[in-house]
Protein backbone atom coordinates (compact mmCIF):
# COMPACT_ATOMS: atom_id res chain seq x y z
CA UNK A 1 0.00 0.00 0.00
CA UNK A 2 1.33 3.37 -1.02
CA UNK A 3 1.97 5.97 1.63
CA UNK A 4 -0.99 8.07 2.60
CA UNK A 5 -0.70 11.71 3.55
CA UNK A 6 -1.91 13.06 6.86
CA UNK A 7 -5.42 13.92 5.64
CA UNK A 8 -5.97 10.50 4.09
CA UNK A 9 -4.78 8.82 7.26
CA UNK A 10 -7.40 10.79 9.19
CA UNK A 11 -10.06 9.73 6.67
CA UNK A 12 -8.93 6.11 7.00
CA UNK A 13 -9.25 6.25 10.80
CA UNK A 14 -12.74 7.77 10.50
CA UNK A 15 -13.73 5.05 8.04
CA UNK A 16 -12.46 2.28 10.33
CA UNK A 17 -14.21 3.81 13.37
CA UNK A 18 -17.47 4.02 11.41
CA UNK A 19 -17.16 0.39 10.34
CA UNK A 20 -16.51 -0.72 13.93
CA UNK A 21 -19.43 1.38 15.17
CA UNK A 22 -21.72 -0.17 12.56
CA UNK A 23 -20.60 -3.67 13.57
CA UNK A 24 -21.22 -2.89 17.26
CA UNK A 25 -24.63 -1.43 16.43
CA UNK A 26 -25.65 -4.57 14.53
CA UNK A 27 -24.40 -6.90 17.30
CA UNK A 28 -26.15 -4.87 20.04
CA UNK A 29 -29.43 -4.81 18.10
CA UNK A 30 -29.46 -8.62 17.79
CA UNK A 31 -31.89 -8.64 14.90
CA UNK A 32 -31.79 -12.45 14.73
CA UNK A 33 -33.45 -12.61 18.17
CA UNK A 34 -36.20 -10.16 17.25
CA UNK A 35 -39.70 -10.96 16.07
CA UNK A 36 -42.93 -9.25 15.14
CA UNK A 37 -45.61 -9.76 17.76
CA UNK A 38 -48.69 -8.14 19.22
CA UNK A 39 -49.86 -8.16 22.83
CA UNK A 40 -52.99 -7.21 24.71
CA UNK A 41 -55.03 -7.76 27.86
CA UNK A 42 -58.46 -9.36 28.05
CA UNK A 43 -61.00 -10.06 30.80
CA UNK A 44 -64.37 -11.80 30.98
CA UNK A 45 -67.27 -9.41 30.31
CA UNK A 46 -68.84 -10.42 33.62
CA UNK A 47 -65.69 -9.56 35.56
CA UNK A 48 -64.66 -6.11 34.32
CA UNK A 49 -61.25 -4.77 35.24
CA UNK A 50 -59.34 -1.58 34.69
CA UNK A 51 -55.65 -1.89 33.95
CA UNK A 52 -53.49 0.86 35.38
CA UNK A 53 -50.24 -0.49 34.09
CA UNK A 54 -49.38 -3.53 32.05
CA UNK A 55 -46.06 -4.02 30.31
CA UNK A 56 -43.63 -6.64 29.15
CA UNK A 57 -40.03 -6.52 30.21
CA UNK A 58 -38.03 -7.56 27.16
CA UNK A 59 -34.84 -9.59 27.01
CA UNK A 60 -32.75 -6.43 26.50
CA UNK A 61 -34.32 -4.62 29.47
CA UNK A 62 -36.62 -2.44 27.37
CA UNK A 63 -40.34 -2.36 28.09
CA UNK A 64 -43.28 -2.85 25.74
CA UNK A 65 -46.85 -1.84 26.48
CA UNK A 66 -49.81 -4.15 25.94
CA UNK A 67 -53.06 -3.09 24.34
CA UNK A 68 -55.61 -2.25 27.06
CA UNK A 69 -58.13 0.00 25.31
CA UNK A 70 -60.83 -2.64 24.92
CA UNK A 71 -60.47 -4.09 28.39
CA UNK A 72 -60.46 -0.64 30.01
CA UNK A 73 -63.62 0.29 28.12
CA UNK A 74 -65.27 -2.90 29.50
CA UNK A 75 -65.51 -4.01 25.91
CA UNK A 76 -63.53 -7.23 26.12
CA UNK A 77 -64.52 -10.84 26.57
CA UNK A 78 -62.57 -13.81 27.83
CA UNK A 79 -59.57 -14.30 25.57
CA UNK A 80 -60.32 -11.54 23.07
CA UNK A 81 -57.26 -10.04 21.44
CA UNK A 82 -57.00 -6.27 21.02
CA UNK A 83 -53.48 -5.99 19.65
CA UNK A 84 -52.46 -3.41 17.12
CA UNK A 85 -50.40 -4.68 14.20
CA UNK A 86 -46.69 -4.69 14.95
CA UNK A 87 -44.57 -2.55 12.63
CA UNK A 88 -41.15 -3.26 14.08
CA UNK A 89 -39.30 -6.24 15.45
CA UNK A 90 -38.79 -6.46 19.18
CA UNK A 91 -36.90 -8.73 21.53
CA UNK A 92 -39.11 -11.35 23.19
CA UNK A 93 -40.60 -10.69 26.65
CA UNK A 94 -39.13 -12.30 29.75
CA UNK A 95 -41.57 -10.96 32.35
CA UNK A 96 -44.96 -9.33 32.68
CA UNK A 97 -45.78 -6.49 35.07
CA UNK A 98 -49.46 -5.92 35.73
CA UNK A 99 -51.39 -3.59 38.01
CA UNK A 100 -55.17 -3.51 37.79
CA UNK A 101 -58.43 -2.94 39.64
CA UNK A 102 -61.14 -5.63 39.71
CA UNK A 103 -64.69 -4.24 39.77
CA UNK A 104 -66.58 -7.23 41.17
CA UNK A 105 -64.32 -7.76 44.18
CA UNK A 106 -63.40 -4.05 44.49
CA UNK A 107 -59.78 -5.07 44.89
CA UNK A 108 -56.50 -3.84 43.48
CA UNK A 109 -54.04 -6.43 42.23
CA UNK A 110 -50.42 -6.01 41.31
CA UNK A 111 -47.79 -8.55 40.37
CA UNK A 112 -44.79 -9.42 38.23
CA UNK A 113 -44.89 -12.72 36.41
CA UNK A 114 -41.86 -14.50 35.00
CA UNK A 115 -42.56 -15.88 31.54
CA UNK A 116 -41.13 -19.16 30.23
CA UNK A 117 -38.42 -17.76 27.95
CA UNK A 118 -37.51 -21.05 26.37
CA UNK A 119 -41.05 -22.00 25.38
CA UNK A 120 -41.60 -18.55 23.91
CA UNK A 121 -38.43 -18.48 21.84
CA UNK A 122 -38.96 -22.02 20.64
CA UNK A 123 -42.54 -21.28 19.61
CA UNK A 124 -41.36 -18.24 17.66
CA UNK A 125 -38.62 -20.27 16.02
CA UNK A 126 -40.77 -23.24 15.02
CA UNK A 127 -44.34 -22.05 14.67
CA UNK A 128 -44.06 -18.57 13.24
CA UNK A 129 -45.35 -19.92 9.94
CA UNK A 130 -48.66 -20.69 11.69
CA UNK A 131 -48.91 -17.07 12.76
CA UNK A 132 -50.92 -14.14 11.54
CA UNK A 133 -49.87 -12.35 8.37
CA UNK A 134 -49.51 -8.64 9.02
CA UNK A 135 -49.19 -6.23 6.12
CA UNK A 136 -46.54 -3.57 6.38
CA UNK A 137 -46.33 -0.07 5.00
CA UNK A 138 -44.20 -0.06 1.85
CA UNK A 139 -42.72 -3.49 2.44
CA UNK A 140 -43.65 -7.16 2.27
CA UNK A 141 -46.09 -8.56 4.87
CA UNK A 142 -44.58 -10.28 7.91
CA UNK A 143 -45.59 -13.18 10.14
CA UNK A 144 -46.51 -12.34 13.69
CA UNK A 145 -47.70 -14.13 16.83
CA UNK A 146 -49.84 -12.62 19.57
CA UNK A 147 -49.60 -12.62 23.33
CA UNK A 148 -52.87 -12.30 25.21
CA UNK A 149 -52.99 -11.79 28.96
CA UNK A 150 -56.25 -13.06 30.42
CA UNK A 151 -57.26 -11.55 33.75
CA UNK A 152 -59.79 -13.92 35.33
CA UNK A 153 -61.76 -13.49 38.56
CA UNK A 154 -60.05 -13.74 41.96
CA UNK A 155 -56.76 -12.34 40.71
CA UNK A 156 -56.00 -15.28 38.46
CA UNK A 157 -53.90 -14.44 35.44
CA UNK A 158 -53.16 -16.54 32.38
CA UNK A 159 -50.87 -15.74 29.46
CA UNK A 160 -51.54 -17.23 26.03
CA UNK A 161 -49.38 -17.18 22.96
CA UNK A 162 -51.31 -17.69 19.77
CA UNK A 163 -51.07 -17.73 16.02
CA UNK A 164 -53.74 -18.14 13.40
CA UNK A 165 -54.42 -21.78 14.18
CA UNK A 166 -52.96 -22.55 17.57
CA UNK A 167 -53.03 -21.33 21.14
CA UNK A 168 -50.55 -22.16 23.86
CA UNK A 169 -50.87 -21.53 27.59
CA UNK A 170 -47.59 -20.01 28.73
CA UNK A 171 -48.23 -19.46 32.40
CA UNK A 172 -50.96 -19.32 35.06
CA UNK A 173 -50.45 -17.16 38.08
CA UNK A 174 -52.40 -15.83 41.05
CA UNK A 175 -51.70 -12.14 41.52
CA UNK A 176 -51.43 -10.61 44.94
CA UNK A 177 -53.78 -7.99 46.35
CA UNK A 178 -52.37 -4.62 47.27
CA UNK A 179 -53.84 -1.61 49.01
CA UNK A 180 -54.18 1.34 46.64
CA UNK A 181 -52.06 4.35 47.48
CA UNK A 182 -52.13 7.90 46.14
CA UNK A 183 -52.43 7.85 42.34
CA UNK A 184 -53.56 4.22 42.17
CA UNK A 185 -57.09 5.58 42.35
CA UNK A 186 -56.49 8.32 39.79
CA UNK A 187 -59.20 8.79 37.18
CA UNK A 188 -59.10 12.29 35.74
CA UNK A 189 -58.33 13.37 39.30
CA UNK A 190 -57.39 11.67 42.52
CA UNK A 191 -60.41 9.80 43.91
CA UNK A 192 -61.34 7.77 46.94
CA UNK A 193 -61.38 4.01 46.52
CA UNK A 194 -65.16 3.96 46.22
CA UNK A 195 -65.21 6.97 43.91
CA UNK A 196 -62.66 5.28 41.66
CA UNK A 197 -64.78 2.17 41.19
CA UNK A 198 -67.84 4.33 40.51
CA UNK A 199 -66.21 6.63 37.97
CA UNK A 200 -63.43 4.72 36.23
CA UNK A 201 -65.70 1.87 35.22
CA UNK A 202 -68.20 2.22 32.41
CA UNK A 203 -70.92 0.04 33.92
CA UNK A 204 -74.64 0.84 33.72
CA UNK A 205 -77.17 0.23 36.48
CA UNK A 206 -78.76 -2.80 34.82
CA UNK A 207 -75.43 -4.54 34.65
CA UNK A 208 -74.73 -3.50 38.21
CA UNK A 209 -78.00 -5.09 39.33
CA UNK A 210 -77.01 -8.33 37.66
CA UNK A 211 -73.63 -8.27 39.36
CA UNK A 212 -75.34 -7.70 42.69
CA UNK A 213 -77.62 -10.69 42.05
CA UNK A 214 -74.46 -12.74 41.61
CA UNK A 215 -74.33 -13.20 37.85
CA UNK A 216 -71.64 -15.71 36.82
CA UNK A 217 -70.75 -16.01 40.49
CA UNK A 218 -69.38 -19.52 40.38
CA UNK A 219 -67.47 -19.09 37.14
CA UNK A 220 -63.85 -20.05 37.26
CA UNK A 221 -62.45 -18.28 34.28
CA UNK A 222 -58.86 -19.35 34.76
CA UNK A 223 -59.85 -22.88 33.68
CA UNK A 224 -62.23 -21.75 30.92
CA UNK A 225 -60.94 -22.02 27.36
CA UNK A 226 -60.60 -18.65 25.66
CA UNK A 227 -63.17 -17.47 23.14
CA UNK A 228 -60.38 -17.64 20.62
CA UNK A 229 -59.97 -21.35 21.17
CA UNK A 230 -63.72 -22.03 21.18
CA UNK A 231 -64.89 -19.87 18.30
CA UNK A 232 -62.15 -18.18 16.39
CA UNK A 233 -59.36 -20.66 15.87
CA UNK A 234 -59.28 -21.46 12.16
Amino acid at each position, binding site marked *: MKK*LNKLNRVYLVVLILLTVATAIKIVMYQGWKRYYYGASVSAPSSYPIRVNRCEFILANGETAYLGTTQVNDQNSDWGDGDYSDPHRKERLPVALVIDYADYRSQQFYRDSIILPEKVISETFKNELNKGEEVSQYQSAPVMSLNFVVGVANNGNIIVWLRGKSFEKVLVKHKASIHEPKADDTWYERRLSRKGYFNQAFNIDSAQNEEFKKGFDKHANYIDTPSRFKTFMMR
Partner: protein
Amino acid sequence: MLPENTKESLTDPNSDQATKSVLFIFAILVMCGIFVSCTYTTEDEELFLWTLICPVITILLGGYTFTYTGKAHVGGRILFYVFLVLSAISIFLIWYLIELSHAYSH
Protein backbone atom coordinates in the same frame (compact mmCIF):
# COMPACT_ATOMS: atom_id res chain seq x y z
CA MET B 1 -7.24 25.03 -22.00
CA LEU B 2 -8.12 21.43 -21.22
CA PRO B 3 -4.69 19.90 -21.89
CA GLU B 4 -3.07 22.64 -19.81
CA ASN B 5 -5.24 21.76 -16.87
CA THR B 6 -4.57 18.06 -17.21
CA LYS B 7 -0.88 18.77 -17.42
CA GLU B 8 -0.98 20.81 -14.25
CA SER B 9 -2.84 18.13 -12.33
CA LEU B 10 -0.42 15.52 -13.60
CA THR B 11 2.56 17.47 -12.42
CA ASP B 12 0.88 18.18 -9.10
CA PRO B 13 2.57 15.91 -6.54
CA ASN B 14 -0.66 15.92 -4.57
CA SER B 15 -2.95 14.68 -7.33
CA ASP B 16 -2.63 11.00 -6.45
CA GLN B 17 -3.39 11.69 -2.78
CA ALA B 18 -6.25 14.01 -3.72
CA THR B 19 -7.91 11.23 -5.74
CA LYS B 20 -7.62 8.94 -2.74
CA SER B 21 -9.13 11.63 -0.53
CA VAL B 22 -12.15 11.89 -2.80
CA LEU B 23 -12.56 8.11 -2.68
CA PHE B 24 -12.28 8.17 1.11
CA ILE B 25 -14.93 10.88 1.36
CA PHE B 26 -17.30 8.79 -0.74
CA ALA B 27 -16.53 5.65 1.28
CA ILE B 28 -17.19 7.47 4.55
CA LEU B 29 -20.51 8.82 3.27
CA VAL B 30 -21.61 5.35 2.11
CA MET B 31 -20.60 3.96 5.51
CA CYS B 32 -22.63 6.72 7.22
CA GLY B 33 -25.64 5.56 5.22
CA ILE B 34 -25.08 1.95 6.29
CA PHE B 35 -24.59 3.00 9.91
CA VAL B 36 -27.90 4.88 9.96
CA SER B 37 -29.95 2.24 8.16
CA CYS B 38 -28.47 -1.04 9.45
CA THR B 39 -31.04 -1.33 12.26
CA TYR B 40 -34.57 -0.07 12.78
CA THR B 41 -34.80 3.67 13.30
CA THR B 42 -37.91 5.73 13.76
CA GLU B 43 -38.75 8.35 11.15
CA ASP B 44 -37.74 11.13 13.53
CA GLU B 45 -34.33 9.64 14.27
CA GLU B 46 -33.72 9.10 10.59
CA LEU B 47 -34.65 12.66 9.72
CA PHE B 48 -32.38 13.99 12.46
CA LEU B 49 -29.46 11.88 11.29
CA TRP B 50 -29.91 12.91 7.67
CA THR B 51 -29.89 16.60 8.57
CA LEU B 52 -26.49 15.99 10.15
CA ILE B 53 -25.15 14.81 6.80
CA CYS B 54 -24.46 18.38 5.56
CA PRO B 55 -22.15 19.28 8.48
CA VAL B 56 -20.39 15.92 8.06
CA ILE B 57 -19.74 16.56 4.35
CA THR B 58 -18.57 20.08 5.21
CA ILE B 59 -16.04 18.81 7.73
CA LEU B 60 -14.76 16.16 5.34
CA LEU B 61 -14.46 18.69 2.51
CA GLY B 62 -12.85 21.16 4.90
CA GLY B 63 -9.90 18.83 5.32
CA TYR B 64 -9.69 18.51 1.56
CA THR B 65 -9.85 22.26 0.95
CA PHE B 66 -7.14 23.19 3.40
CA THR B 67 -4.78 20.37 2.40
CA TYR B 68 -4.81 20.77 -1.37
CA THR B 69 -4.39 24.39 -2.35
CA GLY B 70 -3.50 24.04 -6.06
CA LYS B 71 -5.56 25.41 -8.91
CA ALA B 72 -6.75 21.90 -9.80
CA HIS B 73 -8.78 21.71 -6.61
CA VAL B 74 -10.94 24.79 -7.13
CA GLY B 75 -14.00 22.54 -7.60
CA GLY B 76 -13.54 21.04 -4.16
CA ARG B 77 -13.20 24.47 -2.62
CA ILE B 78 -16.41 25.72 -4.23
CA LEU B 79 -18.21 22.60 -3.07
CA PHE B 80 -16.87 23.20 0.44
CA TYR B 81 -18.32 26.70 0.59
CA VAL B 82 -21.63 25.50 -0.82
CA PHE B 83 -21.86 22.85 1.91
CA LEU B 84 -20.74 25.37 4.53
CA VAL B 85 -23.84 27.40 3.70
CA LEU B 86 -26.06 24.29 3.53
CA SER B 87 -24.89 23.01 6.90
CA ALA B 88 -25.38 26.45 8.46
CA ILE B 89 -28.96 26.30 7.18
CA SER B 90 -29.57 22.75 8.42
CA ILE B 91 -28.04 23.46 11.85
CA PHE B 92 -30.20 26.57 12.10
CA LEU B 93 -33.30 24.54 11.17
CA ILE B 94 -32.56 21.86 13.78
CA TRP B 95 -31.93 24.54 16.41
CA TYR B 96 -35.16 26.28 15.38
CA LEU B 97 -37.16 23.00 15.62
CA ILE B 98 -35.71 22.18 19.04
CA GLU B 99 -36.50 25.67 20.34
CA LEU B 100 -39.97 25.48 18.80
CA SER B 101 -40.64 22.15 20.53
CA HIS B 102 -40.09 23.85 23.91
CA ALA B 103 -43.37 25.64 23.30
CA TYR B 104 -45.15 22.29 23.61
CA SER B 105 -43.72 21.30 26.97
CA HIS B 106 -46.14 21.40 29.83
